[in-house]
């Protein structure tokens, strides 16, 4: 017996907490992936990342309405269309933002941080003006709600499985793009040595723009997926900022693997702590642990050791 639970219950606790942790992990990866690509490959901190996610969520909301009005029979599958719309919308705005704003600030990382914060304010107000200040509810197809009964005490949530699958797929696609495609090769070349890549005939400007657009697009997909578990309101994006940044920074800027590992560490510790402490204290403890670890390993979990 432990804390009043029987052994069997403890087994179930661990199974379900592990699953809850995995969902949180997927959520973190999904949130952080876009940011990690942008920060890792370009050194740009995008403070409007949360707003790009919310843009994706609003696109999902719009798509669901369109389907309800014009194609109610296809509603069950609208979510896939919505994710595509979210990706395209966020990605397109990302491209525009890169072209108008980011490309002028590449050598001033702290200033991009501030400028994108300004952008986030504008996006928030735009959401408010267009969609209203209240939260909007996104209706999900029925098949995405509910859970699968594995044993008497263990249940697995369908939308959790969906988020996990989605995360797995997107991560795989990004990894393939980065390590197998020509674009990925060029990106890695630019990261390794921008001047050299430029000299070798790589259009670094174009690579930057694509990278930024892709990062924002993935944020859009993440936002779309978040309508399943979170709220959609003009300021909801801000709630994700700190978590997302810490995941990326903790993982080490230039490593996809690092981002994943750090998302795993943070999500598992948070979900475990949540079980034994209350929600607030679990959050504080997790953040403090991450800050503490960052002081010990300032460059993050995974970083290439290179000559400076």
């Amino acid at each position, binding site marked *: 017996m432990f804390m009043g639970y029987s052994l069997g219950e403890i087994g179930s606790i661990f199974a379900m907490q592990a699953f809850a942790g995995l969902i949180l992990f997927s959520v973190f990866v999904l949130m952080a992936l876009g940011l990690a690509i942008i920060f890792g490959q370009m050194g740009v901190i995008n403070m409007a990342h949360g707003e790009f996610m919310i843009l994706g969520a609003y696109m999902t909301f719009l798509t669901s309405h369109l389907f309800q009005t014009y194609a109610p029979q296809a509603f069950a599958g609208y979510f896939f269309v919505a994710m595509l719309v979210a990706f395209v919308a966020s990605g397109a705005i990302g491209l525009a933002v890169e072209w108008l704003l980011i490309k002028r600030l590449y050598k001033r990382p702290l200033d991009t941080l501030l400028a994108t914060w300004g952008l986030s304010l504008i996006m928030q107000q735009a959401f408010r003006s267009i969609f209203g200040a209240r939260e909007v509810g996104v209706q999900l197809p029925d098949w995405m709600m509910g859970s699968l009964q594995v044993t008497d005490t263990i249940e697995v949530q369908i939308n959790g499985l969906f988020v996990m699958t989605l995360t797995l797929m997107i991560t795989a696609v990004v990894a393939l793009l980065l390590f197998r495609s020509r674009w990925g090769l060029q990106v890695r070349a630019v990261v390794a040595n921008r001047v050299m890549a430029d000299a070798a005939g790589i259009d670094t400007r174009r690579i930057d723009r694509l990278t930024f657009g892709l990062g924002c697009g993935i944020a859009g997909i993440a936002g779309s997926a978040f309508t399943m578990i979170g709220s959609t309101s003009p300021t909801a994006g801000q709630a994700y900022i700190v978590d997302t940044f810490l995941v990326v920074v903790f993982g080490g800027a230039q490593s996809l693997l690092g981002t994943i590992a750090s998302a795993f560490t943070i999500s598992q510790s948070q979900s475990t702590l949540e079980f034994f402490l209350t929600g607030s204290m679990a959050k504080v403890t997790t953040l403090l642990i991450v800050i503490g670890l960052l002081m010990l390993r300032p460059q993050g979990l995974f970083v*290439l*050791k*290179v*000559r*400076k």
Partner: protein
Amino acid sequence: MPNNTDFVLAVEGVSVSFDGFKAVNDLSLYIDKGELRVIIGPNGAGKTTVLDLICGRTRATEGAISFKNQYIGGLKEHEIVKLGIGRKFQTPSIYEDLTVFENLEISFPRGRNVTGALFWKRSEEIIARVQEVARMIFLGDHIDRLAETLSHGQKQWLEIGMLLIQDPELLMLDEPVAGMSVSERRKTAELLKEIIKNRSVIVIEHDMKFVESIAHRVTVLHQGKVLAEGSMEAIQANPKVQEVYLGH
């Protein structure tokens, strides 16, 4: 291996690796008092890494480095500087937003802690010394100019001046004439000859003409190891060296 007071600097059996790649491999190097040593070698031979190791910028994975018989392997950069080792970087590294005077003033080896800097007084002695050094580095007439408005060569000199005013016992220069015009090179060579009178100097250089004009002894690095060491003539005659350079 010798480890006696004759050497200003003793680098013994030092190795360092980056992600498995051994940039410096079991390298040993001894510098005498008053010696001017030139290190040459093809790209990637580990020249700059050797300087990084000595001045504390990179930590050695193995081996020992001592300065005047004091082990300096674990010290931080500023502590090594305070012991008397000065370092010039490959690309000019100066304070662009400050004037020439202020650049030299900051480098003056006094008032280096927070309170010292806060209550710093510009005494006659300091002003005189700054002006003296400025004249030495051919910038006597530019003392109030912002450093960023200087020409490339002048920036290189300013950085040398900043080291000079520290009055280090060991001076390390990474490609001091890179990007200089012919006349600037000549002036720099004169400057170096002036400087080395009362200290030891390590120079990394590619320009063989320049090396010939200043060197006492030359060390050739190749793939993180010492390939050869000796006088300029001996090195030039060394078949291994010829092979490395021509082979590239």
